[in-house]
Structure formats: structure tokens, C-alpha cells
């Protein structure tokens, strides 16, 4: 349990780091943010990640696999068409890149 806690806190820390960097990047010049805001945002993101992760695991299990694949993700985003399309696009790109790499060998 301690490990879990430790992991969790480490994860959160890292997540904070990235959330803050995204905030820094995305906010316009004159807008300031405080740490409470980052904290809340990190929590939200963390929650979302956990939930999505749980769903993906469930889907994978449902498909009798023990590896989560992109198909699970696409299933997860079935309700959000735009996001799904975006992910599909991204998948295509990655596949092309992978194919390229494999073909190089």
C-alpha cells in the first residue's frame, strides 16, 4: 500500500509537472495562474486517466486479451466522434511511421 501511495504521489508529481508546462504553454501572455489551479487541474486529469485506464482494462478483458490495444481506446472514445477521428488519424500516422521503420530494417 505504501508503494502504491508512493507511486501515486510520484505520478501526481510528474503529472503536475506536465500539466503546469501545458498550462504555461497554452495560456496567453498576460494570464497568470496559481498553484491551486494547477493542483485542481492535476487532480482532474489524474481522475480522468484512472477512469479511462479502468475502462480500457475492462475492454481488453472483455475482448479476451491481456494487452490494451488502440482498439480499446477507439471503443472508449466512441461517444466523442471528434476525438475518435483525431485518434484514428494519429494511429494512422504512427502505423505509417512504424511501417517505415520496419521496412528500413
Amino acid at each position, binding site marked *: 500500500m*505504501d*508503494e*502504491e*501511495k*508512493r*507511486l501515486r*504521489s*510520484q*505520478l*501526481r*508529481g*510528474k503529472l*503536475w*509537472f506536465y500539466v*503546469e*508546462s501545458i498550462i504555461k*504553454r497554452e495560456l496567453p501572455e498576460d494570464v497568470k495562474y496559481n*498553484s*491551486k*489551479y*494547477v*493542483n*485542481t487541474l*492535476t*487532480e*482532474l486529469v489524474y*481522475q480522468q486517466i484512472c*477512469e479511462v485506464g479502468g475502462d480500457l482494462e475492462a475492454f481488453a478483458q472483455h475482448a479476451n486479451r491481456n494487452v490494451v490495444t488502440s482498439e480499446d481506446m477507439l471503443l472508449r472514445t466512441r461517444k466523442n466522434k471528434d476525438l475518435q477521428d483525431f485518434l484514428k488519424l494519429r494511429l494512422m500516422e504512427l502505423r505509417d511511421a512504424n511501417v517505415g521503420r520496419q521496412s528500413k530494417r
Partner: protein
Amino acid sequence: MFCKQKHKTRKKPAVNALMADLSDLSDDDLESLLENNVNRSVNQTVTRHRIPVQRDLFMNVLPNQQTFYEETHTDVSYGPTHHQLNEENLDEYIYPTNYEVRQYQYDIVRCALFENVLCAIPTGTGKTFIASTVMLNYYRWTKSSKIIFTAPTRPLVAQQIKACLGITGIPYSDTAILLDKSRKNREEIWQQKRVFFTTPQVVENDLKRGVLNPKDVVLLVIDEAHRARGNYAYVELTKFIDRFNTSYRLLALTATPAADLEGVQEVVNNLHISKIELRTEDSLDVARYMMRRDREMIEIGLIPEIEEVVEQIGIAIAPVLQEAIQLGIYESCEPHQINAFVAMQQSQKIILNPSIPEGLKWKNFFILQLLSQVGHMYRRLRIYGLRAFYNYFQNKYTEFTTKYSMKKSTNKTAANFFYSPILKTVIDKCKRRLEEPEFYSHEKLEYLNNELADFFTMAPSDSRAIIFTELRESALEIVKSIDILNDGALRPHIFIGQAKGKEHFDEETYIRKNKPKGRTKAARLRRIEEENRVEEEKKRQKEQAKLERTGRRTGSSEEAQLSGMNQKQQKKVISDFKKGIYNVLVCTSIGEEGLDIGEVDLIICFDSTSSPIKNIQRMGRTGRKRDGRIVLLFSGNEKFKFEQAMNDYENLQTAITHNALEYTKSDRILPPNVQPKCEEKFIIISNENDEVNKLEDSDEVIKYATQAMLGKLKTKKKEPKPKKTTAKAKKSSDKTFFMPDNVKEGFTSASSLLNKYTINEFGEKISLTPSVSKKAIKPKKEWNMLDEIEYDSVEISPAKSQVEQPSQPHKPTTTQGILTPDETTNHIPSASQGSSVQTDSHTVQEPVLKKLKLAHQIEDPSTSIEYYSGYELVPQYGATDSAQMLTMQEQRHFLKKYVPDTVHWSIAPDLAKSKTRKIRHVPKIEEILNTCQDMHTNTREKIIGMNRTNALARSIGYNRSVGMELEVMLPSIVVPNETITNAKNMTDLLEDEDGLSDFLSD
């Protein structure tokens, strides 16, 4: 000219024909309300004629032009009258022959019976007789309609009573005199009597109060009708009556209708006159009956002293006048021609002019003010004499010098004038002259005295004389000068109005008030003491003066001049005058009109007014019963003014006779087929009425008349007590408002306006009749049941009902389909749950399905308890004691009365018993909500956690970001597997929860 005829025939009720256009603005509703009310109908025909317009080169009509002009023809016609007429009397009208029959009276009476007439004949020619005759005839012709005689002042009213009742023999029992003294029984009097003598304000008030019904009036006689202008009571009165009744006769009496054509037109409009009967002294038919009136116009020159003063003042004021002329604020003229009125007008103009700078404005104003004062001085010098001038001058002089010496005024122009040496010498001379006892400050006075002396030596012993003048102090001076003659035959007294005299400028008071005051308490006390002393001193002086005055013969006159004469004093003087204690009365304008001074044989007008009405009124005081003599004293430009006034008046008369005025059509009142013939009859006056003739004093007449009216004449005993109490016990009746005929009166409750109609299945409006609600059995429609489904839980919704419902065979199958169980509603206890549990035991529980049914339900007659929404009323609301809830009784009452059957009363939720819970979200959402809320909270743990995470983030960033972009590097995730295998780290892990040591050791 192409003529387009456009006929607009509209019924315009209650609208004066001359003002028909106004009705365009009235509501249709208003019109329809007033439609059937008055019997005057106005037909308006508008004819439009085209007029040529200007066009431009392209044959387009230029804008802003009138392309037509309208001609309006109005036709006024009257319907039949609403008054009840005595058929048998209609064939004739009575003309009393108690007095000599005069042709003009005969003619005027004849006209006045059928039209509204303005009777403008000279004073003393028998207007009252005409009025009385007309009144008598209308009294005979109508059964119960009312006749009102109005005069502006009470003494005049009294005069007329005497005349009317003494001549015509209208029985006392039917007449009433209403002066504003007492208001009790007023309503009774209006109802019981038929002929009223009153002042117009009384009638106006009683009409507005609703005490008098305007429809009852059939004849309105207006005395001194030239006052019917503006918003005087006469005008208001006729306007008010017109709203409800146009079927009444108006007879207007006056000696002088107005001074100009507009004035006369206004009177004609306000009183709806159809005809003016105009006679003057020169008219042949009137002159026959009038006594001789010698009119003598004497031109009197100015005594040399006056001339001298005039000149000297002229010299003194010349520089100021020059300045004024140069500044352009006064017209160029000679100093002695300065006109006070013009100067005042100019000064007013300057004050009102906003474009002049302030300093200049006031300088000019003061100049003009001074000029106006000088003008007044001139006027007094010329017309009233040296003394009047001297008093005025002294007053102004002291006022100015005091103010100036105290530096309250810095008027240099006035200073130059008042302090000039010329003025000083002239004033001193004046003063010395005036102190001489035999000095006449004006030649007029000398002439006046001579005239009076001559007159009274030759005249019979009961002759009287009146002298008219405008100024009070002039009147006093005249009295004094007559008195000095010490002629026993001449006993003068002053006669002025009630107003208190203008306060003379009191130098001492002014100085005391305005000198620099000490602010210390001692100073204040001293001041107060001084004031009191001075007050006392003054009082004593006044007392002394009074005592001295009583010793003198002219004492009371002097007294009067100082403080005005109130009505009591006036009456006393008049009665003394009539008795002969005084035989010369010196009056101001109050004596011209309105007061019953009686007959005199000599009239002297000390000055002349520029109002022809006033002149004529003055001169009308004589020449009635005996020959009279009028002497007019002119000096200065008075003659010119007088002649001009009289000429204007004559022109006015001719204009009137040549139809320069617009008249209105009158209601004939009598049916058109009736043509009464004249019957000259000698009226036998009852003894009571004859008593009136013997009374002289107007007050006595009023008293007598009041007594007669109250029925006290015959029996001189005291009224028995029971009679009084019954009179008192009579309740005052409700205030009546006189409304148009077809108006619903009274209050209606809002509920009676509601719920009258409903829409049946065809969408038609059907009225709800009260009989529906009287049924004992009420079929119910449960529309409102659907509202409560959400509160029902699956468990509670009864699948079966305990009552036999023959009309529902398939309820079980459909029950499930209706409610979709939602996990969220499961744990919510429904509002109905609690109550339905309660009611389950002893009432019929109507099932959910039943609520959806649209069919009527036949109530089980055995159940006597009423149902509303399936829940019994009693248990729920019997227990609760909240103030907002209605008691059972009140509810039942409300339901019966105000809620028709088609609308159901759905009971408000039982707030006392309902348990509401907050519905929780899914855990995921809860988390989000919590995190968002945490942003606002400052709990210590949360803050610490936040800071820890922050520190981790920083360390990661710092560690990995040496010389590199943060975003690019992906930190490795410490996976649980790795940490477990690495035993070395375990101890670290145990200590360091957050794993910060990982990074520190790096």
C-alpha cells in the same frame, strides 16, 4: 373649384356646437356613455373644397401645402325635454300687471321664455321684474323642476328675493334661500323646494357633492352676468349642468355685458346665449321710463401750486429721463408727461429679458422704477391734489433716504433725485401750504364742496349724495374737507372695502431693525427691551390718537381709512346712510357695484376710470325713482380718457346689434306645437309675501326668507322636541354621483367576474352556470395525477386498487410500463409515500393507472369523504397547524365557491412531512466536484498535499531539465516491480513516502 362633399354625420352628444371639433378626441366609450344622456344632438357636415396648389416645372405638387379647405356646417337640434310639464298651464303665460306694463319688458319676457337671453339693460330699468316673470311662468309650466336664481353677493340675493316674491307671488313654501351659512338639511331643501335664491358657489358645491341633481334644473337666472368669464362660479356651474342636462333655460341679467367684443363673446359662449337684448340710456323704449339724469362734465384746471410742483419735479427728473431715453428704455417725452403705467411696463420687460447683463439690467430697472414713481406723483398731483401727492411723496422719500443713509441701497439715480435741492424747496413749500386750514389741495375739492352745498340747500331733506373716488386717502381727504365747512346739512362718511390699508413706511422700525446689531447676549437683551418699549410707546400713541379721533366728527372715517371696513361696519354705515345720519357717502370702487346703497339724487365722480363698465355702474346709481344729477370732475387728461371709454362702449353696442357675435341655439323646452298666449293678470300677493315688501334691510330680508323657508313663519312657537329629534335622526343619505344613464353602479367582486366561461369540446365558449356546482356528486377528472408520478416509487405504486373499478380491466400489464425504475429514484421516498401509507388503512387508494384515465369516474356514493388527487383531505391537514394552510372548512368553502369542476385542486406538497434528499452523483463526478471545491477550501491537509506534489514536480523538472527543454523529456515512471526487486531502495521507500529521495540522491 371642384367641390368634394364629405358628409360626416355624427351624433355628438353634450358638445357645444361651436366646439364640435373637440369630440374628435373623445373615446368611443365616452361617447356611447353620454349618448343617451342629453337631448341635444349636433350634426356636423364637413364640406371639403379643393384649392389650387402650386406646382413646379414637372407638375409635381410642392410640399407643405394645404390642398383643401373644410367648411363645417353644424346643425344643432334638441330632442324632447325630460321635465314634466303641466299641460293645463302651457296654453298661456302670465304677465303680472301689478306694476306699469313697459313695452321693453314685455318684449324681453316674451323672448326669454323660449330662448336663452342676455338682458343688457341699464340699471334700474326693471331687470328683476323680467326675471321674476320668467321664473313665475316656468314655475307654472313645470310640475316639479327647479328654478335657481343666482347673484354674486349676498346682499344682491336678498334684493332679488324681495323683488321676486313681492311681485310674482310664488308661494313661500316652495322657495328657499341658500347662503353658505348652514349646510345641514341642504339636501332636504333641494329636494323639497322648487325656487332657490343663492350664490353661484353654493350651487356649484352642491352639484359637485351630489346633493342637487342637475337634471332637475329647468331655469337658471344669472344676475351680473358680465362676471361669467374665466373660471368664475357661473361658468363652472353651467359647464357642470351641461354634462347632464341641456334642457334648461338661462336668463342672464346685467347692465354692461363687457368692455370689448371678445369679452361679450366669451360671456355668450359660457352661458349659451341665443340672443342679446341690448338697451342703453338712449334707447327710446327704455328712456321713456327713466327719470331724468343730468350729466355734467366739469373740466377743472390745476391750481398754480400744483402747476409749480409739476414743473419743479419735471426739472428734477429731467436728467434721469434723458438718460432713460438715451438708453432706449423709455420713449421720448416731456418730463411732465411721464406715465407711471408705461414706466412700469418697461421695467417689467427689462426684468424678463434674459439677454441683458445683470448690472445693466438693474441700473435700468431702478431708473424706470424712479420714473414710475414720478409718474404716480404726477397722477396724484393732477387728479387728486396736493395732499395726496404730498403723502405719497413723503412715504417714498423717507423710505429711500432711510435705506440710503443706512447703506442698504446704493441707488445713485434715485439719490440724485430725492436729494436734489429743487425738490427740497418745492416740498417745503408744499408742506407749508398744506398746513393752512383753508387750503384746497385741489380745485376739485373746492368745486365739490360748493356743489354739495348748493345741492343740499335746494334739495328735499331726504336727499342723498354719493361721491366716487379711486383712492382711499383721497376719500378721507374729501370727508375732511367737507367736514371743515362745518355745514350741518352735510354729514359725510367714508365707505371703503374690507382690506387693511397699506402699511406706511415706518422709519423708526426700519432703522431699528436694520442697524448693526450686537451679537452678545447683553446686546440682545438690550435690543429686546428696547423693542418692547417702543411697542408700548406705539400702542399708547395709537390709543391716544384713537381717543382724539372719537372726539372728532370725522373720527370714524379716519379710523376706517386706516384699517378698512369689515362687513359689519359697512352695513352699519349703509343703514345710517339710509336713515339719514349721514347724507353724503364717499365711496371707493366698492360702492360702484354690488352693494345695496339705494337711491341717491346726486352723484359726483371725483375721478374717472378708463373702464366704461365702472363709469356706467357708477352713474346708474341715480335716476331711478327720482330725477338725478351726475357731476363728473375732470382734470388733466381725464376727460379724454372718459370720452374714449364711452365711445368704445358705444361702438361695442352697435357691434352687438349688428350681429357681430356668434350665438348658440337654445332648447325651446316647450314642445314645438305649444304656443302660449300672454295673459296679463294682476297677481294677488299673499300676506306673507307682502311682508317682504315692507322690509328694508337686506339682512332682515334674508332672515325673513330663511324663516319662511324653514316653515317657521306662521307659528312663532318653539318647535316641539320630537320634531327636532326626528330631524336629527335622519341619516344622511349616500352620496350620489350623477352618472350617465346606462351605467352600472356599485361594487362587483372580482370573483364574480372570474370563471364565467369555459371552452367546451368544440372550442366554443360556454358560460358556467352556478347550477352546476350545486350537484352533490361531483364527477372528477384526474388531470393532475400525472404531475405526481415522479414522486411515486415502484414499490408504492399500487398495481391493484381495493375498490371495484369496472372500467379498468387491463391495469396490471400496463403498470410496469409506465414507470421506468431509475436507480436514482429508488432511495427517494416519495411525497405520496408517506401520505399514502397513512391513508392506506382507511381510505380508498386510487391506483396510478387510474390517474391516467380520462374517463369520468363515478364516485362511490357510499364514501362520503371527498377526494382530491386521491388523498383525503382530513388527515393531512387536520394535524398541521401551520398558518399558511387553510383549515378544512376554509378549503371546502374555497373549493365550492371558486374552483369549478373542470379545474382540479391539486394539493400542495406536505412540506412538514416530505423528506427530500440530495441526490448524489456518480463517484467520478463526485470526485471532480470535490476537487473543484477544494480549490476554494484551505484545509491544511490539502494544502500540504498540494505543496508536496508541487515540490515533486519541481524536482522532476529541475532534474531533467538541465540544459534541455522540459516538454521534450519524458520522465521514466517508477514501476512497482522495479522498486520491489531493488532491495536497496526498500528502506528508502519506507522512509520516504513520496519518493523524493530518489531524486535527491541523483
